[in-house]
């Protein structure tokens, strides 16, 4: 029995075309992009092309894109880099309680080192409120970091409104767009963001690569030191093959975007309708209108996460209870706890389903049917 993968928000399968794009680079264009001979120059050309594709995908200039080893590193550079470089302007940072750990733990580390951090709360809808942000801003605020789409609930955050609010404020605006990329329209000028994080492995690219957009003029330190790669902002021999694979993934998601999103939306619809037909007691966590097409987080009253996950896995359905990155442990989701309160039973009976490349319509019905049967058994 082939298992059904409904955990695309944790990571996604690499698209076959992506692998195909990478292999010739590894075989033939293996030069070091910093080398001045032909092998180096060819590798450098590939890097330049990829940078240009990455930049266009968010309506940015290629000189504002730096490639990193993934979303985590990009978030770390964005937060640590701007905090330390702008300390003279203030020591206050605003982020939210629902960020990914790559942002949260970095903010906590800054707090330990003397920065003041405000963690904006989240409403039951799964959104943070722009008013809360407005109230939290001070003239000491140097950075605001709010994710564009939450990885556990799939709820979109009011990034454009926040961007507008911050136009006349000294604070830089960073958004972690890891879960939004390839789904939401991203134009750094419309969103008014100064820094934006993307990770390749969430969009059918290889693991271990991502990029950070840094607007012109943003004062930012590096967190690693060494060679002069990536405009001195991220040293280390560039991972050319992964970057080329990432480029291919970007082209693929852009090429068939509407069609693909409609398909995933219909997967989600089918999934939910099948559950309804089974007369299942369930509730969607977060405002349904604000969800991206690919993610839905569902609470099953009367059940418990651990037995759900175990039974789903036995039945061949791969899902998660939230962020995969809470390495291996089933801790109650910090996001749901913040939305509903840590005592609420939704924090211990909810599952995230996320759809994507590995799926087809038939699997979705099969998965929903199995989920229904398991939940009915466990909840009774």
């Amino acid at each position: 029995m082939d298992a059904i993968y409904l955990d695309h928000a944790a990571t996604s399968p690499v698209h076959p075309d992506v692998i195909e794009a990478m292999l010739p680079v590894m075989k033939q264009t293996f030069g070091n992009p910093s080398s001045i001979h032909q092998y180096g120059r060819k590798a450098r050309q590939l890097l330049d092309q990829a940078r240009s594709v990455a930049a266009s995908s968010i309506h940015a200039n290629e000189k504002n894109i730096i490639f990193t080893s993934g979303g985590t590193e990009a978030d770390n550079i964005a937060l640590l880099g701007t905090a330390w470089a702008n300390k003279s302007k203030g020591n206050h940072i605003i982020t939210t309680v629902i960020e990914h750990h790559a942002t949260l733990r970095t903010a906590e580390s800054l707090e330990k080192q003397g920065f003041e951090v405000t963690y904006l709360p989240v409403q039951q809808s799964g959104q943070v409120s722009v008013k809360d942000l407005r109230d939290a801003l001070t003239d000491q605020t140097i950075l605001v970091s709010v994710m564009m789409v939450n990885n556990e609930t799939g709820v979109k955050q009011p990034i454009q409104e926040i961007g507008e609010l911050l136009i006349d404020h000294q604070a830089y605006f960073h958004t972690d767009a890891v879960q939004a990329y390839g789904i939401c329209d991203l134009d750094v000028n419309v969103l008014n963001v100064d820094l934006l994080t993307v990770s390749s492995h969430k969009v059918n690219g290889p693991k271990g690569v991502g990029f950070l957009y840094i607007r012109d003029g943003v004062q930012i330190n590096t967190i690693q030191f060494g060679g002069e790669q990536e405009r001195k902002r991220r040293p280390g021999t560039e991972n050319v093959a992964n970057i080329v694979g990432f480029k291919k993934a970007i082209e693929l998601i852009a090429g068939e975007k509407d069609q693909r999103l409609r398909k995933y939306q219909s997967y989600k619809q089918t999934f939910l309708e099948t559950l309804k037909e089974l007369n299942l007691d369930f509730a969607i966590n977060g405002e349904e209108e604000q969800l991206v097409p690919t993610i839905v987080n569902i609470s099953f009253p009367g059940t418990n996460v651990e037995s759900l996950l175990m039974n789903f896995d036995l039945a061949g359905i791969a899902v998660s209870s939230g962020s995969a990155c809470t390495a291996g442990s089933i801790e109650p989701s910090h996001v749901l706890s913040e939305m509903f309160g840590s005592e609420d039973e939704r924090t211990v009976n909810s599952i995230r389903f996320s759809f994507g490349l590995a799926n087809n319509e038939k699997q979705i019905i099969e998965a929903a049917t199995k989920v229904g049967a398991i939940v009915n058994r466990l909840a009774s």
Partner: protein
Amino acid sequence: MIYFDNSATTKPFPEVLESFLKVSQQFYGNPSSIHRFGIDAENLLRKAQNQASELFGVEQEEIVFTSGGTEGNNMAIKGIALAHQNKGRHIITTEIEHPSVIEACKSLETLGFTVTYLPVDSNGIVKFADVKQAITKETILVSIMHVNNELGTIQPVEAIGKMLKEMPRIYFHVDHVQGYGKIPLDMNGTGIDLCTVSGHKIHGLKGTGLLYVKKGTKLFPLLHGGNQQSNLRSGTENLAGIVSLVKAMRLITEKSKTHSEYLKELNQQLRAELLAISFIKINTIEDQAPHILNISIPGYKPEVIIHALGERDIFISTKSACSSKKTDESAVLKAVGFSHDRTISALRISLSYYNTKEEIELFSRSLQRVVQQLSKVMG
């Protein structure tokens, strides 16, 4: 085509590509996920970690996978400094380290650390006595490379490790990026607490590497987040890269067992042939790392020679690729004390186990021709 720039980067082994391909296609789960896709990925990750630890002669949990040599060096140096600054704020390194070590140290200077950059002798080797003498009550870290990337000189890290072993307060980091697979280095009982390896220098893939972190060594993490890899390195693991790295480690280890004499012979042949050409000065002393030979051709710009060789499908480099864009002068050669005409005209020839005697011959002849032709043009 003659590729003699293996210290800049190497051509991946075909088996490395196969590993990469297989893992990318079949193990796409996130190792942190607890369903079967995740568990399969996690098991594979553990297996790779275990194999790496065996090849390295250390324990499994002492291996941390990184995105390359630069990250390994930064993680070690910044990690020790920031985690142990309450015990002291003095660091010892050398003038001939890779920029990822030198620049990491410089950044710590801006945070109030004191760094001693030890000079090297006229052979390009740091003196044991200098290291010993530089140690103060404040010293918490010594970071010294095993094989220098420009000259190929071997640094006395074993002797230094033996001394530092008796000083438990001081951590010892070795940048083994150029040495791994060429010059064996034992981690067991040798006083080394941290050791950096990079995949793309050993026919692995770019963006892969590992840092050996001796059990019980506290590091301040470079990256914060999901606490992967025992909290030392957050970020979704590049599993296909990791498995391919371990494959490269195994293959280069096997190759070094059977072909280390061969590589030495290639080096000796190259040295002998170049020695016979009057205008070439050899900068690397004998009996150093077998894969690197540094020479100078005073009066000739290295880029011009590299370009002319490139037209003959022969690839070498000036100095380290990472600093190729700065001035012509090699900081390493300068630290050794070579005259200006030599420090600005250096060329690095770096071999792999897969180069041949015929390539060396052809290279030496071509280099001679190229220079003769250039000298005619220049009148």
